């Protein structure tokens, strides 16, 4: 009876049971309603753009793992998230070959070059998007109106542009609410913004579903709630103050919160665990910096939207935040530890 070989291991011998791949998978679940709504508002063009971004990320990750003689890491689902997030930040009529390039760059330059999952300094999807923005400034700011009648029957012609050819302009391009405000000073009403019935990147328009996904992840303790809360609160307070100073020049704080990529960025991009600080106080600082940068870029910068650059810049300083802001260790003097 007692001749069995016993297994040994180091304590603790019990585990909580949450696993990294489970967390990643759940982020994908939380993003699915957002993606589904993108397909609903922008039709098959959006579907194709998102699918191509995901496939290119997964394929790139698999290929790079094989190239470096490692076991493929696509089963941890992180490449799917990167692809999905990248697809959701692209305009619905974005040429597919460019989207594919974006996926390759996101994984190769945003993640793999740093050492893969856990070592990326920046959110990989945003690295991919930043490169696309620099390389294809026209294509990435060519927007399409939401809810076109033929959106489920015909895809926008521009998505099938051959590589290195100029995309065809359909002549139905519409401005995003942020661009409309920045360049023409037209404000879009808040309920259209919250429900996502406006022009924009595929997945950034429906604030309601984005918040729902965030609440799901927060409830399952798979997302740090402090990040979206601190970003949104900073944007609200800063733009609210400006609005009170002069409501003719500055947009209302509600408009600021619900327009552009802020919701998607605050809930799903800035919360990339790897690229954000680890301590609670550090996270508040990080969120505050992103919120501040968003307001500064949107209001005084040359671009209508600044969420991407705000998050990338905050990603860059996040290791330094972790170094400078550390929790006070039990039994040590009650002051911040010097690094």
């Amino acid at each position, binding site marked *: 009876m007692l001749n069995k070989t016993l297994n040994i291991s*180091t*304590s603790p011998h019990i585990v909580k049971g949450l696993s990294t791949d489970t967390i990643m998978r759940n982020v994908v679940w939380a993003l699915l309603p957002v993606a589904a709504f993108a397909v609903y508002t922008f039709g098959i063009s959006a579907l194709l753009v998102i699918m191509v971004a995901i496939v290119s990320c997964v394929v790139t990750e698999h290929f790079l793992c094989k190239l470096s003689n490692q076991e493929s890491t696509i089963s941890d689902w992180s490449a799917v998230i990167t692809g999905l997030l990248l697809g959701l930040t692209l305009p619905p009529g974005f040429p597919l070959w460019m989207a594919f390039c974006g996926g390759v760059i996101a994984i190769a330059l945003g993640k793999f070059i740093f050492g893969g999952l*856990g070592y990326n300094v920046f959110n990989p999807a945003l690295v991919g998007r930043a490169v696309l923005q620099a390389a294809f400034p026209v294509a990435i700011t060519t927007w399409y109106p939401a809810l076109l009648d033929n959106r489920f029957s015909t895809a926008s012609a521009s998505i099938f542009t051959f590589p290195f050819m100029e995309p065809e302009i359909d002549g139905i391009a519409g401005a995003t609410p942020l661009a409309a405000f920045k360049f023409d000073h037209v404000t879009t009403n808040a309920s259209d913004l919250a429900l996502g019935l406006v022009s924009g990147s595929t997945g950034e328009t429906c604030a309601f579903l984005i918040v729902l996904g965030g609440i799901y992840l927060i409830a399952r303790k798979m997302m740090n709630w402090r990040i979206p809360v601190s970003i949104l609160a900073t944007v609200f307070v800063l733009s609210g103050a400006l609005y009170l100073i002069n409501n003719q020049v500055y947009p209302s704080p509600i408009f600021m919160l619900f327009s552009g990529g802020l919701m998607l960025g605050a809930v799903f991009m800035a919360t990339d*665990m790897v690229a954000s600080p680890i*301590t609670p106080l550090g996270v508040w600082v990080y969120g505050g910096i992103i919120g501040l940068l968003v307001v500064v870029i949107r209001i005084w910068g040359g671009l209508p939207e600044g969420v991407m650059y705000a998050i990338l810049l905050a990603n860059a300083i996040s290791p330094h935040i972790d170094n400078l802001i550390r929790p006070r*260790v*039990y039994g040590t003097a009650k002051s911040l530890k010097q690094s």
Partner: protein
Amino acid sequence: MGLFNFHKNTFKHGVHPPEHKDETNGLAIRQFPFAPVIIIPMVMHIGAPSELVVREGQEVDRGQLLAKAGGYVSVPIHAPASGTIRKITNVPTISGKMVPGIYLEAFPFSSQEILEGEPIKLNSATPDEILHGIQHAGIVGLGGAAFPTHVKLKVPEGKNCEVLMINGIECEPYLTTDHRVMLEQAEDIFMGIKYLLKATGAKRAIIGIEANKQDAADHLKNMIPTDAPVSVSVVPVKYPQGSEKMLITSVLGHEVPSGGLPIDVNVVVVNVATTAEIGRLLPHGRGIQERVITITGSGVKKKGNYLIPVGTPLRFVLEQVGVDEHISEVYMGGPMMGVAVSNLDISIVKGTSGIVVFNEKEVKRSKKIFPCIKCGACVDACPISLIPSKMGVLAKFKAYDQMAEDYNLMDCFECGSCSYVCPSHIPLVQYFRLSKSIVRKRKAAKQTA
């Protein structure tokens, strides 16, 4: 004092592993039979090994001195049963190291009366006499640490003990040893507290109990003798509250300084089962021969709380309680801090507070280790606010000195909360154990150089 002494009745962070205590906490303590051969290692405690005073072939009575203390930080060992010393040789221990020890063959038909020694009288004994008595009784921390109790109780020159904290927290999942001791041995506990108050000079004693043992808390409250300044403090359930430092923070609100001991905040902490043992043994001048052990886990057929003679081979214990054919892992101690057993021929020692047997199904540890994704779960779990994720990375790069200097590695008391919550299944606490021992070795090497 008092007015500004707000605290939340608990410490920061911590984790809530499933308790599994109701499987055994209703089962009264039962006497375990004597094994035909008892194996007694000379190293059952922290400190110098005990020194043998018997020879092969000698017949000994239960309670007779087998080995004397090997120094100040050491305790004697008494015979757990009447019998014959069959052999004096090296015996296996849980760490895998062989140490000097005794094979004692118990007399099958002996009445197993326990020898009495020189009693330590509570009213007339001086504090030092009580401390000597505790050492002579072979008492060590029964909570699992097995540190000689008399050393811990000795208040250093210039320090002052105000509060005697009796640790009845038992935060380890599955274990119900202290719970049963509190329910069944209240008189011994209060007798022990009286000895301890006198030995330390403390003005009052507080018994700290977690809220999942409310029945024990109520029972002890009712039993408090009129002539003893004792109170019972019930604190919310959270692991690792049983750690001395966490207990002091929960009950009194102080923090023990980094690298310091409870006495630095005028507190001495003693485990409740140790206290009961002191109260039971000292009035008779006896030595410790047995202890209460919870035997539980999915692989055990007759779970329960047993009074088991020290030195009983683990194989005999498991044969008596019966184990499942699918057993996979056996731990001595609880599942959070206990040690996995590789050899069933080791024996029960004074520090064994539980034996947990898991079958294959209950072992849920994943073999796949993912990279750290900096989710911060470990930061939110660490009771002393370390940054385990960063330290894990540093350990991988062998930056042990940086871990100690910049990240307070040496404050880690290895509770395992970080490893418990890590979604990437990184064995963080094991990294820290190794790192700590390397840092200690380097320091020792520097001092001798």
